[in-house]
């Protein structure tokens, strides 16, 4: 029941989101065809482009053509690149998505241990040190941090390349190219996650069942592993789910620092070239990714907490 309701709400959210994006691009004042061709376009050229883009059709039928295309993987043809949008997006998804996932993985690997240490040593020097460091980590803009990573590790030490992407034919080189961007993306998220981990764990460590477990002779570490950690996972999972959307958004920015050919670069090129079809479909795809991940996190709650399996 729970799953069915969430699934329905997922579909509904996607439909409304697609209508919104469609409206912003195609209904709000301004003729996309005129906008694409610029100020000095001939009226005949604008009309021809309108026909080519299918803009002379009715609004509702245009929406269904676009939305139907999204479902079947036919995103229309890019005006500037003159290739199917699906092809353009397809190439770039394999940069942005692995980057966001890589960053999510790093952020989790960093945040869990330091959050747990801070919670177990709360009020001690280690806790204050970690809390201070995470406060700083939240305040650092990831793209600024990224610039200095490039200077240190790519330009001075020459451990990795400064930018660009070699493609997945050489997986090691690809992962190498994504490492600095992923670290830059992960830093602020790891700081946030570590703080959430700490406070969620502290809350559960105050519970009676933890005192009982301690009274039965379980060590502090044993309590954390056996009881507290699992119960602290719900708020942590929520944040991990939210972080994916921030990481995807952050990836759009970070790709600019490293000249990575991902969805972010595609979006900015499309805006500069006024290629609205590409903007429309790419934004929709990113929103879809965020909504689906939120849904999956919701489902994961039920795995962590059997009480929610209803």
């Amino acid at each position, binding site marked *: 029941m729970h799953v069915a309701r969430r699934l329905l709400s997922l579909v509904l*959210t996607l439909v409304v989101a697609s209508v919104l994006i469609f409206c912003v691009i195609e209904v709000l004042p301004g003729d996309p065809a005129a906008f694409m061709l610029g100020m000095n376009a001939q009226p005949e050229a604008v009309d021809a482009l309108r026909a080519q883009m299918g803009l002379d059709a009715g609004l509702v039928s245009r929406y269904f053509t676009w939305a139907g295309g999204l479902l079947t993987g036919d995103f229309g043809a890019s005006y500037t690149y003159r290739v199917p949008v699906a092809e353009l997006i397809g190439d770039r998804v394999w940069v942005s998505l692995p980057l966001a996932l890589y960053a999510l993985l790093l952020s989790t690997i960093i945040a869990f241990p330091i959050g747990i240490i801070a919670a177990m040593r709360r009020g001690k020097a280690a806790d204050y040190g970690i809390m201070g460091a995470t406060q700083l980590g939240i305040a650092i803009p990831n*793209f*600024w941090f990224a610039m200095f990573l490039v200077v240190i590790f790519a330009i001075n030490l020459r451990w990795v390349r400064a930018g660009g992407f070699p493609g997945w034919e050489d997986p090691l080189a690809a992962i190498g190219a994504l490492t600095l961007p992923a670290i830059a993306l992960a830093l602020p998220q790891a700081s946030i996650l570590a703080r959430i981990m700490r406070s969620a764990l502290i809350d559960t460590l105050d519970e009676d069942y933890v005192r009982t477990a301690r009274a039965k002779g379980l060590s502090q570490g044993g309590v954390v592993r056996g009881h507290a950690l699992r119960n602290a996972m719900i708020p942590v999972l929520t944040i991990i789910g939210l972080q994916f959307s921030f990481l995807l958004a952050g990836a759009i920015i970070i790709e600019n620092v490293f000249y990575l050919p991902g969805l972010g670069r595609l979006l900015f090129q499309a*805006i500069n070239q006024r290629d609205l079809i590409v903007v429309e479909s790419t934004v929709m795809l990113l929103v879809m990714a*965020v909504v689906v991940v939120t849904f999956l996190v919701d489902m994961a709650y039920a795995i962590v907490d059997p009480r929610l399996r209803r």
Partner: protein
Amino acid sequence: MISRNLILGGVLSGLFAVLAVLSFVWTPFDVETLSIPDRMLRPSGTHWLGTDQLGRDIFSMLMVGARTSLAVALASVVIGMGVGVPLGLTAAARRDGLLDDVIMRGNDLIFAFPSILIAILFTALVGPSVWNAILAIGIFNIPVFARLSRGAALSLWSREYIMAARVAGKGAARISAEHILPNIANLLIVQGTIQFSVGILVEAALSYVGLGAQPPLPSWGRMLADAQTLISLAPHMALFPGLAIVLSVLGLNLMGDGLRDVFDPKLKRGRAR
């Protein structure tokens, strides 16, 4: 109790606010005068933080940039609160009703649009400007405040003094305005400082990729974009705008933490013991 956090945060945020206001009447150098012979100078007695690739004084640009950053972040908090809080209060007053459901699902929907995507959509539509940044961050703030005020208001609706007000014949709107809002104001102020700091970070990111403030309006994010290609030649060009962002965001976050401790001493237990 005034904590160290509150003092340090207040001083840092206050410093940037003063610099921003001061920039209206005085900056060490004019930010629109280019001086190519003086380009990329290191920090010195004349140019405290050095100059950029066009010979403009970086300290002066940071002062004017503070104006942009703070104004954008503040305006977007005002939008977020102005729309989000009434929505949240309405949802709480109509809890479990259709309106509640519609408002909360609407929130989920907006949550699916990171502010960078909203900014990209607006920019695709009307071209880049500082207003896009304000709107994009403001819209992103709406569900934050709506959820917070709904949650806080829900816990108040079952209190006895609210019951008393209902018995006295007050309607849901009046109760929300007269009894609920004052009681959640502290929470809203704390969240407001946090969103203010998030706004500064997002504004910097948007103007870094060219979706925010446009030239000649100086902004911290664009200063970083200019600095990026020259970072080996003139690292100070990248260092100082970044530090300005870090310190102002840190200041606001510390202030938010400090305010939370002042408003709700009970919360302190879990956080800092």
